[in-house]
């Protein structure tokens, strides 16, 4: 059995920042990542980030991942990185089981764990929603921005939150036409700056509209769209047809934290945080001692807040296992302040109402 001090599950923005602040505090860190490289979903974010300088505002996500890895390289004696390694279990005795590639299964015994496993894309219920050509917005981003492959010729985007707006813009950048962006809500959910940018390209944003049905035999050939009333019910007679070969679903994400549930951490369904999330204290420690969490796994937000949560949980976990990080109290206060600043807008208010329900 492999013994480690601090095990970090997930090498995305939260996990990398947790590793940075823990390693900086002299803790020995081991990052487990199921993909072949670190960076999580940052590797497909070609847009410039918001927030403040501390969260790399106005730098593209694809470059932030490189910045974090360079920083981590300064602590390489304290950081072990296991890629292509999937955590498959977390047990009552603290043992974590992992699978490297397809055939190397072994156990790890850490003093503390930070679960930073992120989130996954939700889907939407409508007839024929399983046809090929109906893809998550993140999937389309991966296909385009990581592999340089177009998802199709003409796309209908469902969801006018930030991801829907940003991915629509990126589709047009890649030379793919966006027929329209829909949102069932009466208002655009994403930032106005993103919405204006895409509107200037001539892409209509239809609020109070949803997909009624996808049409196609082997893959998407058409989408039927209709207007909805204030109770989100389809209004008869408002159907429109769009000739599209891709329907991109951008209706939000839901936290991925089954490992915490398996370990026995108490979780709660919190709509504002987009699903079941672990109860935690202000140090991001769950109801089980020495099991921490950070990022989207603890409630869906933005990569900016995931990074700050990572720094905070890494600092607190290092302190918990016996290290004395320099300026601990000051740094903790600073991270909490950064999170409060990021959550100061109307969306933040919603997130804070969710967090209130899980902090113990």
């Amino acid at each position: 059995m492999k013994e480690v001090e601090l095990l970090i599950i997930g090498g995305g923005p939260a996990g990398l920042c947790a590793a940075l602040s823990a390693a900086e505090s002299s803790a020995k860190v081991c990052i487990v990542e199921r993909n072949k490289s670190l960076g999580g979903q940052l590797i497909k974010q070609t847009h410039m980030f918001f927030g403040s300088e501390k969260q790399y505002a106005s730098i593209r996500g694809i470059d932030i991942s490189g910045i974090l890895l360079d920083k981590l390289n300064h602590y390489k004696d304290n950081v072990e990185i296991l890629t292509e390694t999937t955590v498959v279990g977390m047990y009552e005795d603290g043992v974590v089981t992992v699978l490297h590639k397809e055939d190397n299964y072994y156990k790890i015994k850490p003093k503390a764990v930070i679960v930073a496993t992120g989130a996954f894309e939700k889907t939407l219920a409508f007839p024929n929603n399983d046809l090929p050509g109906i893809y998550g917005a993140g999937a389309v981003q991966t296909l385009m921005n990581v592999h340089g492959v177009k998802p199709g010729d003409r796309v209908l985007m469902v969801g006018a939150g930030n991801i829907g707006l940003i991915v629509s813009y990126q589709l047009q950048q890649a030379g793919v036409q966006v027929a329209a962006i829909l949102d069932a809500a009466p208002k655009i959910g994403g930032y106005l700056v993103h919405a204006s940018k895409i509107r200037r390209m001539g892409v209509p944003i239809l609020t109070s509209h949803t997909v009624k049905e996808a049409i196609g035999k082997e893959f998407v050939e058409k989408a039927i769209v209709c207007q909805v009333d204030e109770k989100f019910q389809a209004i008869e007679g408002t159907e429109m047809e769009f000739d599209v070969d891709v329907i991109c679903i951008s209706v939000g994400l839901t936290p991925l934290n089954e490992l915490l549930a398996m370990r026995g951490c108490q979780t709660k369904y919190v709509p504002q945080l987009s699903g079941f999330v672990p109860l935690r204290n202000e140090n991001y420690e769950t109801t089980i001692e020495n099991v921490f969490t950070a990022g989207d796994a603890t409630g869906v937000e933005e990569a900016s807040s995931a990074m700050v949560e990572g720094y905070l949980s890494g600092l607190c976990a290092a302190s918990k296992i016996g290290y004395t990080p320099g300026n601990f109290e000051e740094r903790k206060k600073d991270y909490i302040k950064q999170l409060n600043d990021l959550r100061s807008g109307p969306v933040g208010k919603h997130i804070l109402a969710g967090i209130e329900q899980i902090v113990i």
Partner: protein
Amino acid sequence: MRIEEHPILDFHKDNKISFTFNGETLEGYEGETIAAALHASGVKILGKSLFMHRPRGFYCAIGNCSSCMMTVNGVANVKTCVTDLKEGMVVEIQEGKGVIA
């Protein structure tokens, strides 16, 4: 279906490799996933649903949803959206649940 020009990104597609899909020879590039190479060649249908045999494509492209599972080199249930394409790979649409050899 490949992006030829991009204002921000530069795709390094240097090493071309060939593989087969249901017996047909296709080409892709080193460093991309099986699902990406198939999609670039216009293949959207990666499998059939278990009971209704409806066509299946990928959905999440990051290895979560299991909608992209295929038989690769005789091994069933390979998540093609996160598995790298390799020279000479034999990729097939899977019938049923797949059996561990």
